[in-house]
């Protein structure tokens, strides 16, 4: 160094300032500039941070935000990236902002959400102390390629980092759990016990039905959803590992929260008694997000009290389930991006007891995935079981017409399906049909969410209803 590093940080910080002055919140450009001037910049300035990384296909953002809540409860001085800045350049920008011009860290902990496809790149520069891997579900094949390539990329990333790292893995996901086999790192597994939840039977369209090690078909003692569950290979013996932290029961699945019981093995807690926690999030997929974040928190030796209070107080953000009150009605925005996530959102809608009005906003921009074939892997057929409750379905976005076709072929009454491309009209129509005290659900893909948010903000004069 250190002149080169100094210049890189200085120029990059100036870029951040300049972007800020012209009111552009650039999160990637400053990092790109810095890496161009000094390719070793990230490695150099990040080395004194204690780093927690979260990756996987589904639930990264929610998991990261719950871990953030745990850090807050423990008064930890931390930095963290926003979900839109989870590639190498965004991560670099974050660290540039977090060090002095001389490269000295201004904070203790860095909590990093990493895109699963970028994880292998990011770990060339960062040495995480803890890595949480949420799961592997098919996601945007046009962008990431095949699911097994994604898994292998994460595997290479993990192999690159020191053996002192703790890895927190999903026991119920045969792909994710395989990352804990043949490693000398400390492995913590989390999962949902087979007695906690009786999922549907085998889903023939799910990922990973055949053994990752020997290609024999798995047998399952139980299914949770997708390929998650009690898998077992009768040929090579690979099976669901024992979970160190396990959800043992679901007491109540509300439309805005979930009450669960859970317990840990001595790997995480001395005390093995069952705990009851009301997670401030609905939906089974959020039970997994909560379990993974809790396992991470306990693996980092934060107290069980701070972990449970984080789960109870956590509030989701940025389209992961946001509410806007409009007079006596509520608009709920829920991001959808891949089949498994979408299926979970649909099961969540079924919990609503009033007439259902739902809008599906499907775009096919790069950030959404340019291939919309995935809509056909979503189980919209499950809506047939609540068809009496469905009042109106609106489809919109660049691919609103395709979405209407999808709903039609699920067997739902086509009279209930309307294509409304104009977002203002869509909001008006949806709210008009929603009964007093009821909820109008808007399910957008990523870029559609950005569009509908800015329209909602203007329309209802909201000032940053999200953080």
């Amino acid at each position, binding site marked *: 160094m250190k002149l080169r590093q100094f210049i890189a940080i200085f120029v990059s910080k100036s870029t951040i300032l300049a972007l800020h002055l012209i009111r552009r919140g650039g999160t990637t450009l400053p990092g790109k500039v810095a890496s161009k001037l000094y390719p070793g910049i990230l490695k150099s300035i990040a080395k004194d941070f204690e780093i927690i990384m979260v990756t996987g296909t589904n639930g990264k953002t929610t998991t990261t935000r719950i871990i953030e809540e745990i850090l807050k409860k423990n008064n930890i001085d931390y930095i963290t990236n926003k979900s839109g800045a989870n590639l190498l350049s965004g991560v670099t920008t974050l660290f540039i902002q977090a060090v002095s011009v001389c490269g000295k860290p201004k904070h203790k902990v860095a909590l990093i959400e990493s895109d699963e496809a970028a994880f292998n790149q990011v770990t060339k520069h960062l040495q995480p102390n803890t890595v949480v891997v949420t799961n592997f579900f*098919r996601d945007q*094949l*046009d962008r990431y*390629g*095949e*699911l*097994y390539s994604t898994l292998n990329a994460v595997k290479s990333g993990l192999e690159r980092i020191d053996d002192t790292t703790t890895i927190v893995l999903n026991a119920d996901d045969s792909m994710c759990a395989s990352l804990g086999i043949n490693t000398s790192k400390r492995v913590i597994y989390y999962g949902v016990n087979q007695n906690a939840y009786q999922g549907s039977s085998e889903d*023939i*369209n799910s990922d990973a*039905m*055949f053994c990752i090690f020997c*290609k024999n*078909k798995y047998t399952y003692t139980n299914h949770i959803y997708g390929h998650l569950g009690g898998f077992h290979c009768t040929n090579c013996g690979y099976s669901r590992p024992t979970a160190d932290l396990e959800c043992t029961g679901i007491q109540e699945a509300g439309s805005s929260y979930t009450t669960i019981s859970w317990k840990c093995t001595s790997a995480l807690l001395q005390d093995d008694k069952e705990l009851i926690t009301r997670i401030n999030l609905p939906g089974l997929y959020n039970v997994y997000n909560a379990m993974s974040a809790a396992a991470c928190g306990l693996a980092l030796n934060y107290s069980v009290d701070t972990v449970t209070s984080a789960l109870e107080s956590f509030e989701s953000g940025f389209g992961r389930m946001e509410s806007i009150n409009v007079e006596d009605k509520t608009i709920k925005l829920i991001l959808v991006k891949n089949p498994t996530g979408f299926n979970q959102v649909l099961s969540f809608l079924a919990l609503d007891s009033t007439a259902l009005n739902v809008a599906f906003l499907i775009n096919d921009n790069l950030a959404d995935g*340019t*291939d*919309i*074939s*995935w*809509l*056909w*892997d979503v189980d919209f057929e499950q809506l047939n079981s609540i068809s009496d409750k469905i009042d109106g379905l609106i489809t919109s976005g660049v*691919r609103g*017409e*395709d979405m*209407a*076709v*999808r709903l*039609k*072929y*699920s*067997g739902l009454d*086509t009279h209930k*399906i309307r*294509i409304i491309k104009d977002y203002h009209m869509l909001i008006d129509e949806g709210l008009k049909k929603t009964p007093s005290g009821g909820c109008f659900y808007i399910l957008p893909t990523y870029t559609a969410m950005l569009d509908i948010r800015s329209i909602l903000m203007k329309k209802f004069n909201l000032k940053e209803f999200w953080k």
Partner: protein
Amino acid sequence: MFNLNICHLYPDLLNTYGDRGNMLALQRRAMWHGINANITNITIGTAFDSSAFDIVFLGGGQDFEQEIIQKDLLDQKGSEIKNAISSMKVFLCICGGYQLMGKYYKTWDGKEIEFLGALDLWTVGGSERMIGNIVFESDIINDNGNPLKIVGFENHSGRTYLGDGIRPFGKVLSGNGNNGTDGFEGAIYNNVYCSYSHGSLLPKNPVLTDHLLSLALKQKYADFDSLGELDDTFENAARTTVIQRILR
């Protein structure tokens, strides 16, 4: 009442790109036309008796899964599939399913993997994937007096080449098609229809779906004449939106 038996081959393995939509389209449209359609899933270890089926569907899978089925496909189901093809059964094979019907797949480093050899075509691995919306035109299917424009989405690195007896399914209007160079997409032999297009292919190309259903019904019932009209407003809207967007 007419009755169609549809076989979904390897649904638990060749299911990567939303190809389930093709089964839904066949089943729903048959129903809307007043035809009874039964779907049977047949996978590794289950016997495939081609005489029991009128339409056979094969989707695309990831390399991992395609390796798993290869032995079962060649040793257990190969001869029945070839029988079915020569007895003019209707097949729809998408992406990986299309490649598997051919003679072999040659990887980029020259390794040859033996495939079924039911059709005279072969695939060579490429380094770059061909990904994006595709529109192709098929003069084999009539759409109100014009060749049918078919829309889909392709995502493949294999380049497929057709032997002498095999006709291309259509001419590429936008996209890459079979190999990105000769301007053709898919393959047709007897009543076997192969394509790289998923999306899913059938739901938003209802004329193609009805064409396949009609072919199967003609094979089976001497008194079958033709299918009636359905309300395809949504399907046509989805199809024309894509066509207008990429064929400006």
